[in-house]
């Protein structure tokens, strides 16, 4: 892909080429037409002079004197030629300048009319000619028709035009080159902040810098700020992964040690159960780590919109299959078209865990309600997700304990504690909270409140 500078330079060059090309063509045409008009006027003057100088001779024919007022008629090869012919095309007089040349007879104009034409000599020299057919009445009352013709070589005129064009082209080329040079200098200046960002990112990659500086033009300051946000969240994510992995590896060591001890122990009583217990412990640790939130809210730059109604419907359709025998009655209250700004996986984890718990514990009824929460400066609304059931409920003192990882109220329903701990972690990663209380029907009512993402926060 071409660089921005190359694209701009190529575009500007093409535009300049077009502009100057059209300008040169227009000027050339105008200059040529004006020059030709001037030539015609001059030829007209010469023709009138020839007419004025023509006198009848003794043989009752028109004749022209040897010397004319225009000296170029008398100079051989001067480029200005005169000729008088009778109606039969016989040359009665030809100027001295045309000595040795054959001026083409050309088209004879209608009597009394002028006729301009472009003709050429036998050697190819281009000519501009003017012919006039006249009826000459002699003193004896007779009259005869004659054709006066003047011609001028266009060699010098064409050379003038070519010179003009050459000059025009030269000047315009010089102007275009100067403009392009000035533009490329300007561009270099404009691109400097971009190159600075690039250099600073390279420094960050090389570990010589931790974030982008804030000395950028207004147009780029937002980009730099967002890049810094992304870099920070990437760094936080990498730290978090390292921490999680470290935590996971260490927490697995204890059950592993216990299993090895069991294998080495001579006491084989309840060996299977005790071994299985350690496997359950490891499974619980791994499951919790795997289901933790995908990303903290600092990564809102990359967050997408989740279509809440669609995902809840998919979830409930799935749960209806899983709890086919129990057939819980779902009451769903979701604002149509509502969007949640976040990760789809996180949303499904929030709603999925709460609905799954509600299905496990309910007598018959499960209720889910999701409403958006907004604030004045919000760029994306938050949500309040409430799931309640008509089961036995959770006593308040146990509710706090439930929010701790891995705590279970009822061993017969495995994973309850993990589910809520995961919900709590995900809510916290979006800056939200989890609260547990008793529902109107006596069961548990769990509410997750995710605050809106405010523009003030995004500027921080």
């Amino acid at each position: 892909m071409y660089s921005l500078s190359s694209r701009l330079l190529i575009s500007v060059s093409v535009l300049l080429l077009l502009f100057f090309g059209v300008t040169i063509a227009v000027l050339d045409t105008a200059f040529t037409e004006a020059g030709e008009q001037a030539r015609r006027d001059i030829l007209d003057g010469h023709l009138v002079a020839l007419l004025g100088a023509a006198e009848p001779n003794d043989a009752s024919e028109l004749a022209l004197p040897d010397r004319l007022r225009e000296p170029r008629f008398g100079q051989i090869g001067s480029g200005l030629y005169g000729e008088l012919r009778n109606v039969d095309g016989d040359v009665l007089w030809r100027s001295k300048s045309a000595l040795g040349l054959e001026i083409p007879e050309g088209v004879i104009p209608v009597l009394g009319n002028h006729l301009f034409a472009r003709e050429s000599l036998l050697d190819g020299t281009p000519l501009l000619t003017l012919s006039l057919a006249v009826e000459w009445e002699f003193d004896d009352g007779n009259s005869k028709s004659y054709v006066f013709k003047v011609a001028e070589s266009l060699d010098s005129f064409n050379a003038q035009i070519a010179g003009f064009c050459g000059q025009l082209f030269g000047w315009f080329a010089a102007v275009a080159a100067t403009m392009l040079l000035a533009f490329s200098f300007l561009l270099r200046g404009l691109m400097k902040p971009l190159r600075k960002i690039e250099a600073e990112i390279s420094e960050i990659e090389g570990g010589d810098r931790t974030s982008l500086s804030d000395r950028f033009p207004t147009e780029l300051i937002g980009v730099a700020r967002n890049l810094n946000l992304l870099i920070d969240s990437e760094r936080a994510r990498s730290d978090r992964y390292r921490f999680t992995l470290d935590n996971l590896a260490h927490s697995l060591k204890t059950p592993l040690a216990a299993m090895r001890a069991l294998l080495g122990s001579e006491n084989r009583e309840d060996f299977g159960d005790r071994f299985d217990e350690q496997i359950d412990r490891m499974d619980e640790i791994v499951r919790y780590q795997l289901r933790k939130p995908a990303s903290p809210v600092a990564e809102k730059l990359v967050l997408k919109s989740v279509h809440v109604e669609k995902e809840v419907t998919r979830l409930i359709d799935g749960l209806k299959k899983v709890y086919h025998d129990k057939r819980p009655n779902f009451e769903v209250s979701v604002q149509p078209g509502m969007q949640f700004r976040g990760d789809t996986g996180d949303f499904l984890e929030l709603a999925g865990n709460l609905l799954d718990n509600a299905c496990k514990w309910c007598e018959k009824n499960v209720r889910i309600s999701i409403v958006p929460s907004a604030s004045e400066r919000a760029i994306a609304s938050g949500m309040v997700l409430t799931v309640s059931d008509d089961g036995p409920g959770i006593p308040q003192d146990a509710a706090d304990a439930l929010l701790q990882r891995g705590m279970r109220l009822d061993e017969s329903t495995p994973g309850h504690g993990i589910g809520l701990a995961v919900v709590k972690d995900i809510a916290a990663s979006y800056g939200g909270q989890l609260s547990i209380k008793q529902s109107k029907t006596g069961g548990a009512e769990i509410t997750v409140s995710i605050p809106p993402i405010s523009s003030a926060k995004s500027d921080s």
Partner: protein
Amino acid sequence: MRLLVIEDDATLRETLAQKLGDVGFAVEQAADGKEGLYFAEEYPIDLAIIDLGLPEMSGLEIIRRVRAEGKTYPILILTARDRWEDKVDGLSAGADDYVVKPFHFEEVSARVNALLRRSGGWASSQLEAAPGSLDMSRQELKVNGEVLELTSFEYKIIEYLMVRAGQVISKAELTDRLYDQDFERDSNVIEVFIGRLRKKMDPDNTIKPIETLRGRGYRFALERNQSD
């Protein structure tokens, strides 16, 4: 009942197949996605257990294709992925339930029984059809409250017939679904076992639990106590 297990981990697959075989299922095994899809589309099976992360073709793809083919047998997902997003994807693709790895065999067995029962239209874990009742998890058949002593093959037959109570089951279907592949397929054996079952369940020939429909097959004839 004939089950299909598609799982790429050999230890897990073979152990699962062996344990399912121990509790009376005929089990087909496939080690990768393509082989699994072939079995799932071509074999007469009553339920498929499908791992989601398979070589050659993902479990999700198999489920989609099997459902697109119009197969309606229950599908149980085995998955190492515990996030709801993955579970919902599997269930939306057409699976009926899921078990997360690692699991206890009893959990898989219970879900398999529940799915089979559901596919026959039974709502509770006890298949009640007075005076008979069948407990699939304990593999017990009672008539008038008395537990009957059945051989494993007799149990397989009565379970298959009772799950599909009211439907006519041909001898060929019974042989297909109940025999292991390496077993010699002989439909006369079915007649012998049906005869024995009738004697055990109905020694006085009064309740007539299994009807013979000439040329068509057998039907469990007792009325379901609850069905939905």
